[in-house]
């Protein structure tokens, strides 16, 4: 069973796409150029602090707003292992899966953890923190196929070479 451990960074409700990547940086040439500005309207220092394999934990409606796909791409390029939130905005949800960024919906974890805590995630099963287990809904098979391939384009190449 796929399992991982990560340190959490805690954000609030309604983290919108303009906070994840403000409009003024969208014209930069690559996502790697943009990523140091991630979350900058809210916490300008955060992008530099996030380490490989860390986990972002947030409240409800994470990723609301624009359809800009740079938002999940940047989080992926910061090497964030997954985002756990009480809920996700739908366009952001699709874009994340399509870019191979794992999202987990859980209503309790965001209130249970504080920044710097470490949590264990057992894929499609549960989150473990402080000895307590928080069940998670498994993702449907078609979405897991996309995630495991590293995104929609790669999944299609693997499946039948259609793209």
């Amino acid at each position: 069973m796929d399992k991982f451990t990560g340190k959490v960074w805690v954000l609030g409700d309604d983290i919108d796409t303009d906070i994840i990547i403000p409009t003024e940086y969208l014209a930069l040439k690559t996502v790697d150029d943009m990523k140091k500005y991630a979350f900058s309207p809210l916490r300008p220092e955060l992008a530099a602090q996030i380490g490989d394999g860390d986990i972002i934990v947030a409240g409800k409606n994470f990723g609301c707003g624009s359809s800009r796909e740079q938002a999940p791409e940047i989080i992926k390029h910061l090497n964030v292992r997954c985002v756990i939130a009480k809920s996700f905005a739908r366009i952001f949800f699709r874009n994340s899966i399509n870019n191979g960024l794992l999202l987990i919906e859980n209503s309790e974890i965001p209130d249970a953890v504080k920044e710097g805590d470490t949590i264990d995630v057992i894929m499609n099963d549960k989150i473990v923190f402080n000895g307590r287990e928080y069940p998670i809904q498994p993702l449907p098979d078609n979405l897991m196929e996309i995630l495991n391939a590293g995104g929609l384009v790669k999944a299609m190449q693997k499946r039948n070479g259609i793209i």
Partner: protein
Amino acid sequence: MGMTIAEKIIARAAGVSEVKPGQIHTVELDYLMSNDGTTHLTIDMYNNKLKNPRIADKDKLVFIVDHNVPAENPKTAAVHKKMREFAKANGIKFFEGKGVCHQIMFEEFVEPGQLIFGADSHTCSYGALGAFGTGVGCTDFLYAMVTGKSWVMVPETLRFNLKGKLREGVYPRDLILTIIGDIGANGANYKVMEFAGEGAHNLSVNDRFVLCNLAVEAGAKTGIVEPDEKVEQFIKEHGRNADNMYVSDEDAKFLKVYEYDLSKIEPVVARPDFVDDVISLSEVGDVKIDEAFLGSCNNGRIDDLRVAASILKGKKVHPDVRFIVAPASNNVYLQALDEGLIDIFMEAGAMVMNANCSVCWGSCQGVIGDGEVLISTGTRNFKGRAGHKNSKVYLGSAATVTASAIAGKICGTV
């Protein structure tokens, strides 16, 4: 079992007789629209990542340059060049400098019953004409462009029964902000907002656009107003097909039903930094403004310009305020010229821009600085949306924006 409007549209696009919420269906798309916010990323993937790049049906594709037009720096000029050349090489419909993408789709292409993907979150606007439009990212767009298809999960529907008429001085913008304030910024997440009842039918198709356009600000997958003879008339006048005017069945299942009496709606504003932080205009207090914006896919149509001009006529914009006006399309602009509205704006001291997204998305025009306050008919008021991260954006109707531009502070009448 009866179906909702959205379910009927998805069933048609999936080629099946019935669909139910929660099912995943492969669907054929009627149009695919992409603008200069992300089209260059789609083209890069198309050129660099695909083994067999091809376009399923070029006639379904529409590329529109509206976010940074005309280009304001070499980076956006390069984005536009890439888009222009790709469109030309592949025979794709291409619009540049003609207006905001959703307004162009409304004026030129959308038909009732269609399923349309747009690489822009406000694609949900097309429900004004009884279509299902929804925003996607560029990877979803690429997949649909190459295969002509995509997948959708059938959403549940929230039904909004509207009755009565809006009072004078109250606008569809006030209604939709009130609804978003009530249900919250994720109150319709993954769901469809369906508007029906005689109150909905009292609204013009332009008014309906305002409602559907902001559905995404409540998290909705789309907003749809039950189409009627007003839609049929609009579609026929534009030489399009109105054969698929779907309405929900009597026994259709709604997740929740809301009732709104339009005569009870009051002017409201959304406070920074959340679209659902909605308060009555009378409670806003003393808020001085630096800039006012009239335009965007939400409120840049002729009705909005008429309202603004009627308030502004014979008055002057406050000396401490920049008042920026951007018609939603060149058709709107020409009509406003014809009606003498542009004269009124310019004589009052407003800046009239070309038809584009302008101040709404905080990039190419009227960007606001540190600590500045904007009152806007734009779509969003997120932190830093219109410029500096410490600037503030209030959202309100065209009337509220115009009155505020004259008074130099947020107000409803002058």
